């Protein structure tokens, strides 16, 4: 393992220099780059990368890497935000993951994005530990955008329950994942369930998924025994049933991401905060598995609260 400084951001005299570190393994070939947090609340994303660095170091020591295969892991580019408890860049609230491919003569976060992108551009494969724009939990999955550049079958190699495919929106064109694809990197976003909380089990599963992908891509020895994965199901974003609230108030969630539900099951109750009167029983509109659960004590009207992967049949006790 070699520790490199990818980019150093200097906010002197107000903040001390902030380095963005990369950890490289194997050879100098650009086979796989993994990027953790680009936002200050992505604790889980940094944790997954930390666990990955630790695991790859052990694998490297064991000689598990195949020759001429190289991996770079950048656990965090968001210390400037994380150290003050902000999701976005604290000065101007810009989002590093809306600044790619970056511009080395541009604004602060464009320069930072450029520094990161220069380090990860040209890799054959890219994995971003991503988070969603709404607070909540997902069932662990890999997703990619249908840009026309993607090699989607590789997404099955992670062995996570789902491989979600979605059409890019204009705003996605400045994300790391999109730009990776444009520059011919086989790019995936991996959702490791949580964002601003550390879920150790989910992090372990995410690292195991990345290792399975590495074995599939010939970066690790084929005979390496790893925790077994799932048979991955492809799902298009538009297939998910979105459940939108009809009322506003405090929320009592009755299920978590990953739960199997039948049509008509009560998934949550929304209460009037002042009288505790139940204003709405949020029900499953179809049978299937809860894919996303919105988190929070309170919710407004017309908010996404759940999404469900429809299924013909689920098995419950």
């Amino acid at each position, binding site marked *: 393992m070699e520790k490199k400084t990818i980019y150093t951001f*200097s906010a*002197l005299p107000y903040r001390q220099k902030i380095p963005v570190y990369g950890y490289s393994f194997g050879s100098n070939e650009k086979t796989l780059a993994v990027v953790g947090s680009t936002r200050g609340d992505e604790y889980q994303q940094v944790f997954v990368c930390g666990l990955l660095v630790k695991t790859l170091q052990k694998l490297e020591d064991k000689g598990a890497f195949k020759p001429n295969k190289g991996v770079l892991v950048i656990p965090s580019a968001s210390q400037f935000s994380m150290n003050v408890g902000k999701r*976005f860049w604290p000065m101007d609230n810009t989002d590093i993951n*809306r600044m790619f491919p970056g511009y080395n003569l*541009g604004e602060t976060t464009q320069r930072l994005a450029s520094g990161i992108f220069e380090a990860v551009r040209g890799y054959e494969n890219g994995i971003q530990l991503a988070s969603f724009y709404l607070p909540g939990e997902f069932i662990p999955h890999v997703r990619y955008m249908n840009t026309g550049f993607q090699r989607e079958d590789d997404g099955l190699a992670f062995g996570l329950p789902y491989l979600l495919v979605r059409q890019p929106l204009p*705003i996605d064109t400045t994300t790391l994942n999109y730009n990776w694809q444009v520059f011919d990197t086989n790019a995936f976003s991996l959702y490791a369930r949580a964002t601003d909380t550390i879920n150790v089990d989910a992090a372990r599963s995410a690292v195991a998924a990345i290792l399975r992908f590495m074995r599939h891509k010939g970066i690790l020895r084929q005979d390496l025994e790893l925790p077994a994965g799932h048979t991955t199901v492809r799902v298009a974003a538009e297939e998910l049933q979105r459940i939108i609230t009809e009322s506003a*108030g405090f929320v009592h969630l009755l299920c978590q991401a990953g739960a199997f539900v039948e049509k008509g099951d009560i998934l949550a109750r929304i209460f009037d905060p*002042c009288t505790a009167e139940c204003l709405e029983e949020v029900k499953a509109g179809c049978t299937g598995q809860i894919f996303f659960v919105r988190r929070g004590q309170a919710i*407004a009207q017309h908010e996404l609260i759940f999404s469900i992967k429809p299924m013909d049949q689920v098995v419950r006790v």
Partner: protein
Amino acid sequence: MIEDVVRLKLPAGEDFAVQKNSIIGEAGEGKRLCIITGTHGDELEGQYVAFQLARLLEKKKTRLRGQVDIYPSLNPMGISTIYRGLPGFDLDMNRIFPGSEKGSMYEYAAHRIVESISGADLAIDIHASNIFLRELPQIRINEKTANQLVPMSKAMNMDLVWVHSAATVLESTLAWSLNSTGTPCLVVEMGVGMRLTIEYGDKLVAGILATMVNMGMLLEKAPSVGQPIVSTDGHVGFVNANQSGIFMPVVPHGCRIHQGQTLGVIADSLTGKVREELKSPTTGLLFTLREYPVVLEGSLIARVLEV
């Protein structure tokens, strides 16, 4: 007439509502003009313009043909909390258009806003830079819509019309959503965030009234207006900080400046030294100047229009 564009319940005993004031002319049927502002909660220059237009047009109703819809606050939660974005929601409101009927609250609101404005003969979307930069009154036009919009912008009494290059990410803006579906929309940028610049506001009000006269909506003599400089990206020079520190300008905003002339310095208040001296990349009009003194490496300091 005050109407709701969208109204939804918030968790704790309050409604989220985007409202518009529809002023219906008494001089007969005619075109529809929409005045929109308050997308970013820290941009307040448009509040003055909305106030003055609502007040003036109410008095001019007998000479008003058609309808003017004023939307003073697309992001009421942001304005009320001194927050640029959408409180509780990660995205910039001007990056979620055209919204979605099945989306979350703000995406749904964006959908209803576009639905409400669509079909107008002209929409004017007023912005005020941000808290960091002060801007001369200007209209920004995507090069893809320049042929149609540049002529419409000439009577708006702005100092500058900047025709900028197309970027896919800008397709999420309100202006793009409207322009791409046949509703012409001009984007105004002027002043600075969290402040009112009355002089600029009065200038824009006169420009909007002159534009209304040109559109046949206002049956009176148009106020006299100045003609803008029309420019493209290739003629705009950018100055970014290469050091962090305190920016201290040495030239006033809006002045004419020579190539190589010092714009200001970045000072280090710990050591008492100047960390960087910033110079103009070209000879021209200093139409953007840093207002907020604390700068980080990369912060935009100035834009100079080559003239």
